[in-house]
């Protein structure tokens, strides 16, 4: 007998564009794992320092082509983020006329991807510098959990639930979809950015770490909006609901 929460999860994963987005994520994950050995983001993380980056010779020796680096980052985003935009994509699809659906979805998706891609300009160097040594993973994981618990992250998650309805007119609608994608991407970035550093600190099992973080972010995204206060990270509360009921008292989260 499948536990009820898992049945509920399975049923909701079949709704709307989620199956397609999961397929996209799995494809991107597979491609990111196929990147040339020694040139992946993970191999680089922690091997750099500000001093090395300042030295052109060392930089040329260590850094792969910028295109490869950027490609690795975009693949990582595509492997982790698509399921998070299932709700706004479904909303856009359902509230746009048949003839204009792709013209609405495409600008939204491109704008969303652009936000995350540009974020790589900051997050990638940060990861290359920080994700090193045995302490990197617990430190980055702890920082991400603290971020998730913060009012700032909750406010960003709340903005992820904001919906927009596109106006009439192809150009007006496309511009509004672009704005929507930028705003949604900004909110998503605000909620999730420290989590993107975590898989980069995992040298063995980087792909598995990406999947685990993506699942965590998806359940945080699925939690309803709530006042922006310090609180137990919603992803922890949500995953806790999947635990067998007899073990729930162990964490002390559920007081019932």
């Amino acid at each position, binding site marked *: 007998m499948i536990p*009820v*929460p898992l*049945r*509920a*999860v*399975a*049923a*909701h994963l*079949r*709704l709307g564009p989620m199956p397609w987005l999961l397929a996209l994520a799995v494809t991107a994950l597979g491609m990111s794992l196929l990147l040339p050995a020694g040139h992946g983001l993970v191999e680089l993380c922690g091997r750099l320092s500000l001093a090395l980056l300042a030295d052109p010779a060392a930089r040329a020796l260590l850094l792969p082509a910028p295109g490869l680096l950027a490609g690795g980052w975009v693949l990582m985003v595509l492997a982790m983020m698509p399921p998070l935009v299932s709700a706004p994509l479904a*909303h856009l699809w*359902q*509230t*746009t*006329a*048949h003839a204009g659906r792709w013209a609405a979805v495409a600008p939204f998706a491109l704008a969303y991807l652009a936000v995350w891609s540009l974020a790589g300009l900051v997050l990638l160097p940060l990861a290359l510098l920080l994700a090193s040594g045995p302490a990197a993973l617990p430190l980055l994981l702890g920082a991400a959990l603290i971020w998730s618990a913060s009012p700032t992250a909750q406010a960003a998650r*709340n*903005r*992820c*639930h*904001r*919906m*927009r*309805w*596109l*106006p*009439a*007119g192809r150009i*007006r609608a496309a511009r509004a979809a672009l704005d929507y994608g930028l705003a949604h991407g900004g909110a998503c970035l605000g909620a999730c950015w420290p989590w993107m550093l975590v898989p980069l600190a995992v040298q063995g099992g980087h792909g598995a770490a990406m999947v685990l973080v993506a699942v965590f972010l998806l*359940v945080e995204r*699925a*939690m*309803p*909006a*709530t*006042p*922006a*206060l310090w*609180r*137990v990270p*919603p992803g922890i*509360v*949500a*995953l806790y*609901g999947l635990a067998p009921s007899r073990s729930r008292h162990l964490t002390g*989260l*559920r*007081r*019932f």
Partner: protein
Amino acid sequence: MAGTRKDIAKLNGPWSDEMLWYARAVRALQGRAPADRTSWWYLAAIHGIDIPGWVQQGIVPSAGSLPPQGEQDLIFNQCQHAGWFFLPWHRGYLAAFEAILDAWISTQPGGPQDWALPYWNYLSDSNPNGRAIPQEFLDPTLPDGSANPLSQVRRNGMQVLGPQPWFPGDISLSAQTRSLPFTAAPGTEGYGGAISGFAQQGSLTGAVEGDPHNRVHVMVGGVQPVAGWMSDPDYAALDPIFWMHHCNIDRFWAAWMSDPANQQEASGAWSNGPFPRQFLMPNPAGGGDVFLPGQTLPGGPLAPVYDSLHDGTGIAQAVAGGPVTEGAMITSRQAGGSALLGSNSAPLTVAATPAATEIAIPARAATEFAAPPGLGPEPRLYLNLEGVRGAAAAGVLQVHLRLPGEGGGLRLADTVALFGLGKASSTEGVHAGNGLSLAIDITDLAREIQMAAPGALERLSVELSQPGAPETEITVERVSLYRQEMG
């Protein structure tokens, strides 16, 4: 175990035994601490709570008197509106409330062992005074002279349901008597609402939720000078009449499901409920139980028993007899799809003066709607108000369509009660500020317009106004037109 739920008007009232025990139990629950899971305050906060407002009004002594934040996150602010969990969530909520009251009543000296929530049958066929708020909710005292906890509420003096200067509309059984799927396709009407996750304000209001549910809430609470408790989801369950109102709404659903012509949703996504946040209710022992929508269906542990599913429900009686339980359960069926035909091009602001807009739709869509091909069911047309926002706790909007021609007048499409407007518009709380969205069936009116002037539907003129003397603005992000594809 609770007994059979009965019509307040058919008890030996006013102040029948059932209502006297209700009042005593409410008083007992009001005497419990706000953090007590069986207290009146705790139970009301499960529906919705505005903590600063509750403290300011003296409803609770302080924010610190409430349970810890972690517990609040799990159980407060759960009410489901504008989505397909509206009916099952409120059924589970009523069951938990009834069980807690019953646990207290049945242990009192002389207390009945089969007490059940009465319902307010405001559209009763047999009671011409059904629309009047039952006397027990108006009397300042109980028969023994003590203060009446059922009337110590904020209601703006409302006593009878029906048209008011600020609400020139009425309640009806329209949701009961039309042929509707349970689940709405986007932009259309369903009996129970559109697909949603855990949503205190989902994407589209269901038919029975719009009328009579929302209308009764706003008519009882009133909107001026300040919205009464029943008009605001964060206060509504503090008014003892809330529970009698929802008991009747729940009976409407039970009656609707007893009609073999209707199709009840039973898909896995509906039956298993939302996730990660689930529906959680306290029990009389002070613990908590998660419940699933599937458990509220006929034959399930949360299915109630009513004395009548026919008086005032719009559902004809198939078989004469005594107490009736819910009848035929139909397997789930997905309704046909829908398509957006067109929308206006800019948001509207409705203040003291009306606001007008136009929706352009392709000529072919207008022609196809006016003369649908084929022999199947005719498609229906829905006017949508999407992203309706305002600062007031509740509001009222009148929606008119302009008839074609130079002297074309206005025809009323609907008067809508915006229950929970302020809460749905806030970006600070649990709604993300998406506002309210609703669909109005304008099929007949649209055909009339198209027949009066072929081509008139291609540029449909819509006018929105706030009746009465509104002091606050209401904005509408988009006005649009959807066609329902009959499945």
